[in-house]
């Protein structure tokens, strides 16, 4: 009797737990596919489109405040302020090289002096800094790994340079692809948009406009992840160019960013990687005890060393860690 009572009480407890569990699952599920129109796989009706439009209108004022037009001696582009002291993210091809004096223009037309910092030709990420002291309007950056394929996004820019009569141009679209150093969207671009910001529908900066091809859906952007992975390097070191990388070390793998990390797709015969026994499907974890966050970071780290330098690479092979040593080779001339 006693035993049964205990059991039935336990039973009741279990039922209550189950109900709570189910409720929490329902709530959790609702969270994943909530009712926000821009989280749906597709807008289904006019109301979804209106919700997307209203959201965009609400996010625009703060995003636009931090947009700048960049005026260099040899061309114009766009950029976005990401810190109160006036750090500006843009495209590497807009700044060209490190230490160049240029001007940025705020949306009201005010012209401020700036100096180019670093960046990389691999991803086309670039940075500059407003040199006038002040408290500048800035936007929040998304964390690495935030952007997913299908996310709604909007872009800002000054195509063709600053134009007071026209004002800022806004374009809407969705993330089509996002791999390694490139995000592709159907939020369309034109020259002069280069370096301008792309935002998600939380109002966070997710990418920087880089380049286009002839098709309307082929607009390419530098994911914010590239900046996060190389933040101090871009801020403090000269722009990485293909030309400069020519003299640096060469490891000899083709790799790709996947969810698990940086995976080796191909090992080039007779290179450092080949001699060290690196294999396809190995994950690259660390180089000289430094964590590898992105493909671009890996390329930069390797090419900032010299041919003949020893490197220690930590790999993950079939789930177990493995450390290999390699002596870097010379970058082949055709390599880009």
């Amino acid at each position, binding site marked *: 009797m006693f035993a049964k009572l205990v059991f039935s009480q336990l039973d009741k407890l279990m039922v209550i737990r189950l109900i709570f569990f189910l409720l929490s699952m329902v709530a959790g*599920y609702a969270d994943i596919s909530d009712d926000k129109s821009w989280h749906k796989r597709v807008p289904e009706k006019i109301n979804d*489109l209106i919700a997307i*439009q209203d959201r965009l209108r609400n996010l625009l004022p703060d995003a636009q405040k931090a947009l700048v037009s960049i005026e260099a001696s040899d061309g114009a582009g766009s950029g976005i302020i990401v810190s109160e002291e006036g750090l500006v993210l843009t495209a590497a091809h807009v700044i060209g090289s490190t230490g160049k004096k240029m001007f940025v223009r705020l949306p009201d037309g005010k012209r401020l002096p700036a100096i180019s910092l670093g960046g990389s030709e691999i991803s086309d990420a670039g940075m500059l800094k407003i040199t006038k002291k002040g408290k500048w309007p800035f936007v929040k950056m998304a964390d690495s790994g935030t952007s997913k*394929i*299908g996310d709604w996004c909007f872009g800002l820019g000054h195509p063709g340079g600053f134009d007071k009569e026209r004002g800022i141009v806004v374009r809407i679209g969705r993330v089509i692809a996002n791999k390694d150093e490139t995000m592709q969207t*159907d939020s369309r671009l034109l020259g002069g948009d280069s370096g301008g910001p792309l935002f998600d529908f939380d109002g966070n900066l997710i990418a920087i406009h880089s380049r286009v091809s002839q098709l309307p859906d082929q607009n390419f952007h530098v994911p914010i992840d590239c900046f996060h992975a190389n933040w101090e390097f871009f801020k403090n070191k000269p722009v990485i160019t293909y030309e400069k990388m020519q003299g640096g070390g060469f490891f000899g793998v083709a790799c790709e960013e996947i969810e698990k990390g940086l995976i080796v797709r191909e090992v080039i015969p007779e290179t450092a990687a080949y001699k060290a026994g690196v294999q396809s499907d190995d994950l690259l974890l660390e180089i000289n005890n430094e964590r590898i966050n992105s493909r671009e970071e890996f390329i930069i780290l390797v090419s900032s060393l010299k041919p003949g330098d020893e490197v220690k690479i930590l790999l993950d092979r079939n789930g177990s860690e493995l450390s290999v040593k390699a002596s870097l080779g010379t970058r082949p001339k055709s390599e880009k």
Partner: protein
Amino acid sequence: MKKIFSLLSSIILFWVCADADSNNTSDILSKEYRLNGIYTQNAFGLAKEKALHSTVRLTRNDKLIAMGTIVSPDGLILTKASSCVGAREATLSSGDRFNLRIKKRNEDLDLALYQMISDRKDFQPITWKDDNASIGVSWVLSAFTELNEIRVGITSGKQRKIGREGGVMGVMLGSEGPSGILITEVVPQAAADKAGVRAGDFVQKIDGRSVKKREQVVNIVGKKDPGDVVVIKVLRKEVDKEFKITLGHRSVTFDMFNRNMQMSGPVSKRKDNFPLILQHDLPLPKEAMGGPIFNLEGECVGINIARVDRVTVFTLPAEIIKQKVDSFISNQ
């Protein structure tokens, strides 16, 4: 109980996994989910239907040259005047075809009014957007060229006037000297090139007036419109030569040098000198100009009047067109 519990939880977990999976399987967003994919288009519902039924294709020798906007139940069509020269036939989304008769042209707005020749009184005209309040960043849509799909996008940039562009020859001028002003470069395929002018020629006279300074050339030519003809006298290897140049548009001519334009594809010839425009980014070819553009309510907010580049279309707002149409129709 425990069994049911674990069974239930595993089902739920499976669900969640399946859902996460279906969101993440592909590395690329397939076409139908994109901004101009068919699923997105379908969300525009009645506005989409309105766009398809109130837009016509205008053809010359079966080739699409412009789109048109049905403005009355008896088949009056408004379109872009400079695009539809020689338009012979109009085709509806139903496939019905009608011959056309021109009724009016207005050069200021680059609009033309045509009549579809028919006894029908059941054409589906657009409904003009009523108020002329600025619409801010808003969804807009237009029928695509085959009248079976739409293109969608947003308006952006301020409503504004677009100034007049003078005509240009498409040459770069160099040093001024006793034999004239040196032409250092000729834009390939532009007006001067087509007329036969070459780099190395010295400009001596334009329209019979002697010129000594670069500004004189720029002033004379710039006062004329694209399409006007100038007579230019040059000295080439000690020999006098005369050419008739039909002037081009500044933006079109010098954009040939511009990388943006190579990426843009064909743009409208006339894209300047409008009293007021709205700007948007629908991916439409230049042959789709003259057609109507709608808001989410299915009201016509204007007529697409110029494809400027790969991301820019100018629209004449409804408020500008409405008065013109009323006077067009009452003066018939």
